[in-house]
């Protein structure tokens, strides 16, 4: 891999890392949810020099074209990232349901009590 390519990949990873950090700093991205994206950015930065390791591992696994291994690993990282956020979304949906139901029940109770007070 040429130096320019390594530098480009490193800068792309660094940009992602910095972007996510910036979003967290501005309060637009929750810290606990940003960890996955920071890890992806870090992985991208490290991958700029990973070809040395990748080439050896790929050949040992019988993969004749090492970049394929890189793509597979990237794909797995993204899949697990999406899985994590799907779990988060699922939790949020449950919480939203609970809140909506509580709101409806409380609103009804409040209305009933208000009517009772106004009848006195």
């Amino acid at each position, binding site marked *: 891999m040429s130096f320019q390519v390594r530098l480009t990949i490193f800068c792309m990873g660094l940009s992602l890392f910095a972007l996510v950090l910036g979003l967290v700093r501005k309060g637009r991205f929750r810290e606990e949810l940003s960890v996955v994206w920071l890890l992806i950015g870090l992985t991208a930065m490290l991958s700029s020099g990973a070809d040395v390791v990748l080439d050896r591992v790929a050949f040992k696994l019988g993969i004749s074209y090492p970049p394929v291994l890189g793509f597979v690993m990237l794909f797995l990282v993204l899949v697990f990232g999406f899985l994590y956020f799907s779990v988060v979304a699922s939790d949020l*949906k*449950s919480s*939203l*349901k*609970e809140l*909506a*139901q509580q*709101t*409806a*029940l409380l*609103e*009804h109770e409040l209305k009933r009590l208000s009517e009772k007070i106004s009848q006195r």
Partner: protein
Amino acid sequence: MKTLAIIPAYNEEGTIQEVVMRTRREIPSADIVVVNDGSSDNTSPVAEQTGAMVLNLPCNIGYGGALQTGFRFAAKHGYEVVVTIDGDGQHDPSFAHQLMAVMAAEQADVVIGSRFLQGQYQVGLARKLAIRVFSRMATRYTGTTFTDPTSGFQLLRRRVFSYLALRDNYPLDYPDVNIIMALHKMKFKVVEAPVRMMEKPGGESMHSGLKPVFYVMRMSLAIVMVLLKKV
């Protein structure tokens, strides 16, 4: 028995008044609560004008979520039995007595009103096939014949709806075979009784496009979860 009729409704301003009035006429001993599932039309004010109690969900959480809200209300206010009736006018409230009679005769905990036991209700081929497959699954698992597991016209005893009112014990979308199997696993007695239902007029079909495919996948997973989960 202290009875509550739960009517979940989403954008049913055209039918809700009639549904409430018919329910009141056919089951005069029952209190009525309309659960407005985040409707964007006048479902809520129309329902309130009928004199029914109305629970207004701040956003649309789904048919199952709306029903569960009704269960929570019923559990909190000491009702012994609830009857669930759709707000779109599909269910004929006069058959609630049939459900009550079957509940008493068979000492059942849940009675599901089936539109297929006697009626001529027509459904599309894909839906018919899915209902048949999952009905057979429920029948094999419980030992009781089920023909209409997706029916929303149901009568439930307190011990059942109190359980279903808790946290994630009820699906957000449509209760189906998985609920029947889960209740059977909990040792509740679930039976069917014949009822009459009207064909749903107009509206977007929930069975169009790829929805039946997703429905089959989702239901298969839900059934596996019931079998795997500890009671």
